[in-house]
């Protein structure tokens, strides 16, 4: 499914100018600071913003066409078959949980989904007869999510659905989202200002800044691209954007799980190189129910500030992870240097084997860079503790 966006919208203090074709598969994240226009973008797709110039197409069907030449088209939000979960739930206060869910199911024409199955999937059985104002924040969003799904949309939009929740509720809803996406094969556009959340669930990422798209691509690739643009427009916004912003320079990974617990409280992932070597990556042990997600792979990230560089192989060290890598870029950012290093690159003398290259990002001080005399092309050892390999969900 393709979403073809080509429009402009007045969005003080700037214009929202969007020109992009999104291929909707899995979960697509939309990242940006408050005021970057990401919620407005969702509202335009939903049909809640009408005053735009341009057009939006979902596959071949025109949702809105307000360009100059052709006759104007506007499909009302209720006829778009697009679901939207709002930040503030927006459950109907005059109905209980069941009433809210039935509201959606009644108005759905296809009824392909089984009502009870969705309730089971969203774990709402015990809450059906509660009043809306008796629910916790996390429960409200679960109801809102179930309600949106029961309308059986072609596309589901999530507008910061987790921002009002605590960490635990966030993690459990993220797992639920992954599960729903997988079971229903429902394309999702997920707006958030939290990269931690997006990194865990998204397949692709769209980055907005000041009303413009500054990047669109695979999740890991986009996160890595953002490492280089730390001081870019994202941090323009307001002073409190600094606080709100949990965007850190990091290496974002999806790695096959070898063991959930090796008996010493560590889980093991495997990282393969182009040379077909297997490198083990250790991290704190994972709970047993982790496996089914992401087809036996684990989404994890390592902060650039959590990796250090050594010129000799650190054998006698409590730091369990160390990799041999080659420096491909050095970017100085103030008194720090962002080192880009490639693990598992191809053999120079014509090795044909296909495998995986993995970039790692390391943040060191300019002092260390001078001490070690690091240069592009140099081979080094990257080392990081098991605890530095993080995952937001588990």
């Amino acid at each position: 499914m393709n979403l073809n966006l080509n429009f402009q919208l007045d969005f003080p203090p700037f214009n929202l100018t969007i020109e992009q074709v999104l291929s909707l598969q899995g979960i697509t994240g939309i990242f940006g600071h408050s005021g970057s226009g990401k919620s407005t973008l969702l509202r335009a797709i939903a049909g809640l913003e009408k005053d735009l110039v341009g057009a939006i197409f979902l596959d071949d069907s025109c949702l809105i066409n307000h360009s100059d030449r052709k006759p104007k088209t506007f499909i009302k939000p209720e006829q778009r078959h697009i679901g939207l979960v709002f930040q503030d739930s927006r459950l109907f206060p005059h109905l209980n949980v069941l009433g809210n869910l039935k509201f959606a199911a009644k108005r759905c024409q296809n009824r392909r989904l089984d009502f009870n199955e969705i309730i089971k999937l969203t774990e709402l059985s015990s809450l059906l007869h509660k009043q809306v104002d008796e629910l916790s924040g996390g429960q409200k969003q679960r109801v809102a999510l179930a309600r949106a799904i029961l309308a059986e949309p072609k596309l589901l939009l999530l507008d910061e659905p987790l921002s009002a929740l605590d960490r635990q509720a966030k993690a459990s809803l993220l797992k639920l989202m992954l599960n729903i996406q997988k079971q229903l094969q429902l394309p999702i556009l997920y707006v958030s200002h939290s990269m931690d959340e997006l990194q865990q669930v998204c397949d692709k990422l769209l980055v907005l800044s000041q009303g413009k798209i500054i990047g669109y691509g695979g999740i890991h690739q986009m996160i890595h691209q953002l490492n280089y643009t730390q001081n870019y427009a994202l941090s323009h916004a307001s002073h409190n954007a600094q606080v709100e912003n949990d965007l850190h320079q990091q290496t974002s990974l999806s790695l096959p799980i070898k063991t959930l617990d090796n008996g010493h409280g560590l889980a093991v992932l495997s990282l393969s190189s182009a040379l077909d070597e297997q490198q083990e990556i250790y991290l704190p042990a994972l709970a047993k129910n982790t496996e089914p997600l992401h087809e036996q792979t684990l989404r994890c990230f390592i902060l650039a500030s959590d990796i250090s560089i050594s010129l000799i192989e650190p054998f006698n060290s409590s730091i369990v992870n160390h990799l041999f890598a080659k420096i491909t870029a050095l970017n100085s950012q103030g008194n720090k240097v962002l080192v880009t290093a490639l693990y598992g690159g191809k053999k120079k003398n014509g090795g044909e084997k296909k495998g995986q290259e993995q970039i790692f990002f390391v943040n060191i001080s300019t002092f260390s860079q001078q001490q070690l005399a690091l240069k592009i092309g140099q081979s080094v050892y990257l080392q990081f503790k098991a605890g530095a390999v993080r995952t937001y969900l588990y």
Partner: protein
Amino acid sequence: MISPDVLALVTTLKMAALTTIILLLIGTPLAWFLAKMQSRFKVIIEAVVALPLVLPPTVLGFYLLIAFSPQYLPGQLWQQATGQQLAFSFSAIVIGSVLYSMPFVIQPLQKAFEQLGDPLLEAGSMLGAGALDRFFNIVLPSTKASFITAASLGFAHTVGEFGVILMIGGNIPGETRVLSIALFDHVEAFDYAQAHLLAISLLAGSMVLLSAIYLLNRAAPKTPKTAKKAKGK
């Protein structure tokens, strides 16, 4: 033979009930329109709607009397359409009451619609509910308390009307002679006993009605709480 005061009571209730129904029918869309309106002219329309609150009823009655008379267009049109004179008829006092009680119905509804805001309506449309569906299944249940208030205030205020009716309705038993006019008649005839009886029943009736409204409103306090929160952000 039915007593004149009972007849006046029946006329009053008939007038008030009809007025309330008409006001809900035209007042709801008007209140909705005002709540959603963003034009500069909103203030002017609001002022016109609120005018009966400050205007002496006799002023409104005077202009209506002129308009309803057969010499002027509204009165003429009415006479052509129905074959009857508009001034000094039951229809005249209903039309007068509709205008006179309008702010009592429109204002609470407008306020409720403004407070409800767009959030729940947007949620409704994202679930496939069209405009009428949203009105009947989201707006109406969420603002039920305000509808009860609006209807009761409109009804009670119409029952208590005097000046407008005296001007445009006169005092025709079974047609335009309502309780407030009957009371005035008794006083003019120095029949204070009957006057007391009517006055105390009107007082008690209004008291009961108003208490019932406040009781109902307290029983259903959950009007648009979520809407307010969403607006604040």
